[in-house]
């Protein structure tokens, strides 16, 4: 009898091991909540507001996916992750997707077994310094102490940049943006380096923003985008096309305000397909017809999300630049919905 109990345990364990890689879509639907990995706090991109609700440019993607899959943009459980913990949280299944300014690189895509499904922000690494330091270019930072977030691509870019320019620096490695900001403000480092968008966000939260400048050098390419686990293509497609639905919506002039109106009046076949009035695009991904409409209604199209969280009318004040639509000289380009 003892033996059978033991064998039973073994068999159970083997089954458990097998269950680990079930389809994410089914898990999310069964759970009724989307687990989304976000930043611990980067104003504009992903940070809790005064009432504790997460808002931001990256967070809006979580909301759009939740709206598309579950039909309710509020059914998201936000898990704050640091640069160190984010990929482990995703790989272990703690979160279903990451929407947390993470740079798409070759080794992350292949070696870490992740899938970057799209680029929601084309960024580059920059430096912020205090104005009274009297520095106008990153190349003048010879011998400076630089605050840097550990576990990031910026850490490696920084080493490369200083090496390439034959200058030296002292690194101060910190775990997250908040700590980096504290050290930078306290003067523990001369310069703070991270993605230029992150610098703008950090600068916006400083009480004396006018005393800090972002140096003109952009020393790297940082395509930031949502990430899913490698191997579950269906789930990857859902996140990818939810994002592209937002971009396409901007191209087609569909906003959160007029989405119902457009749905009622449009004669454009592609708009009809996107909004589920024609064809069965949703079913191809295992979703219902209205997924696109709900995703757009959640926080608006790509342009609306940009303007509301990080655009020029916000304290962060980022220009669209590379992130304008391709029709306006930018790189945001949604593949056709057909």
């Amino acid at each position, binding site marked *: 009898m003892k033996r059978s109990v033991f064998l039973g345990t073994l068999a159970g364990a083997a089954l458990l091991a097998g269950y680990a*890689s079930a389809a994410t879509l089914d898990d999310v639907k069964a759970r009724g909540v989307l687990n989304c990995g976000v930043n611990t706090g980067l104003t504009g991109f992903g940070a809790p507001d005064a009432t504790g609700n997460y808002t931001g440019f990256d967070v809006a993607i979580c909301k759009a996916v939740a709206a598309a899959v579950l039909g309710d943009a509020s059914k998201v459980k936000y898990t704050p992750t640091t640069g160190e913990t984010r990929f*482990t949280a995703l790989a272990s299944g703690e979160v279903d997707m990451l929407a947390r300014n993470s740079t798409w690189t070759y080794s992350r895509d292949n070696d870490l077994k992740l899938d970057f499904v799209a680029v929601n922000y084309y960024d580059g690494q920059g430096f912020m310094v205090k104005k009274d330091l009297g520095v106008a270019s990153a190349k003048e930072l010879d011998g*400076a102490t630089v605050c840097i977030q550990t*576990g990031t691509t910026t*850490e*490696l870019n920084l080493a*490369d940049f200083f090496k390439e320019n034959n200058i030296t620096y002292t690194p101060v490695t910190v775990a997250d943006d908040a700590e980096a900001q504290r050290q930078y403000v306290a003067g523990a480092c001369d310069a703070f380096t991270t993605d230029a968008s992150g610098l703008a966000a950090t600068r916006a939260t400083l009480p004396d923003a006018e005393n800090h400048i972002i140096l003109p050098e952009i020393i790297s390419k940082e395509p930031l985008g949502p990430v899913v686990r490698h191997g579950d293509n269906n789930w990857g497609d859902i996140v990818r096309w939810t994002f592209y639905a937002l971009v396409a919506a901007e191209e087609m002039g569909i906003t959160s305000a007029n989405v119902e109106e457009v749905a009622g009046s449009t004669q454009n076949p592609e708009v009809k397909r996107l909004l589920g009035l024609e064809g069965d695009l949703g079913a191809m991904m295992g979703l219902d017809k209205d997924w696109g409409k709900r995703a757009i209604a959640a926080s608006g199209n790509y342009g609306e999300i940009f303007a509301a969280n990080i655009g020029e009318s916000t304290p962060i004040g980022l220009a669209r630049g590379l992130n304008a639509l391709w029709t306006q000289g930018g790189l945001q380009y949604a593949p056709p919905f057909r």
Partner: protein
Amino acid sequence: MAYVAEAPKESFRLSMLIYDTRFRSITIQVIVLILALLFVGWLTDNTIKNLAAKDKDINFSFLWNRAGYDIDQQLIPYTNDSTHGRAAVVGLLNTLVVAFFGCILATIIGVFAGVLRLSNNWLVARIMTVYVEIFRNVPLLLWIILAFTVFSETRPEPKDYKITAPMVELVKQKMTEEGETLPPDFKVTPRMVSSYADELEAAGIEPPQTEIFFGTVAVTNRGSNIPMPLLSRPLGGFEVAGVPISFSVLAVFALLAASIFVSRKLSRRAAAIQEETGVRPVIWWKNLAIIVLPVSLLLWAMGLHWEIPGFATDEFGVSKGFNIVGGINVAHSFTALLIALSLYTGAYIAEAVRGGILAISRGQTEAAYALGLRPGKTMRLVILPQALRVIIPPLISQYLNLTKNTTLGMAISYLDLKGTLGGITLNQTGRELECMLLMMLIYLILSLIISSLMNVFNTAMKLKER
């Protein structure tokens, strides 16, 4: 006729494994061993299966790849072109150096606090009690962060040490007013500037911060810059696996060891004379001379001088650059970690010392007093050597704790083994399991080495029984 009953034939039945006390304990042990092995096997198998399900394998080849990141405190040469393996070694050395100095400091603090806690002086004993209780009852992490915050928030920024052009102008002007003729390429030194601090303040210029210890040590909010010993006539050296080994340092240590050997011989001779005649010859100054003189001579011959830290300056004495350069830069993460670890562990060692002393019977003290020994000597020569036998075993575990607690340095960005191998390398390569296993193995080996060394010491100190 006597009837001899035939002895019952021994036959082994399976049930005897359970019901026969001769076999039962072995049976149970075998079953538990099998279960334990099966559990380990299942864990390994499950790990490999789950890794395979995520398309991952166990592979340590990343240790030979380029690391690509920089480490601020490095005891052996390291650049971002070095491998992840070398970064791990740099981290390990950082762990070892803080653990080594931490153990020494904690022992000193602990012995003093432990002895003083038993002092007859009410105030001293209470102060030590307060110290022990405060440090034992607040988490170590908080002490580490507190120590770091105190340094980084209270000390001035490096730029406050800078000498600016207006300062140089004013100092020159004042000196000219005082009737000195200055050549056009006259260079103003930090000392001149600080001697005109009042005049600077009167002119509305904040005078620069001055370095402490006669202008040799600067403590900024980033780190402490201390003078670095340099040799103008070094003896050369060689490299082992990229680690430079200097003959000069080896020579100094060899000479020091020889001196100590000679001085011990002298002490033994003194003890023999005391045994014979009852009078101990005065030898302390001879010992001191034997240890200090040869090494000083050697250092002088090699041309020892000190590199004083300070800002780089232009030809007029105006500071340039962002940081104080030259000398040895000790980051505050190291200092704070060292202070917090040694004060925290020192509190525990103090308790071990106090327990050890209390374990020695009162009769020993009274006997020593009866022989005419003063309290200080009684403690040093009679009580502590005996107490040591009781103190050493708990001391071993405190040393182990201190070594393992160095991993908390990650809270203040101290790049020890946990910071390099278990932090940045793990993040950049995504090899969580490999890094964790390797790190656990290294800490295990480290702890075993420390405890075996201390066990050797313990055996040497143990009461020799015949």
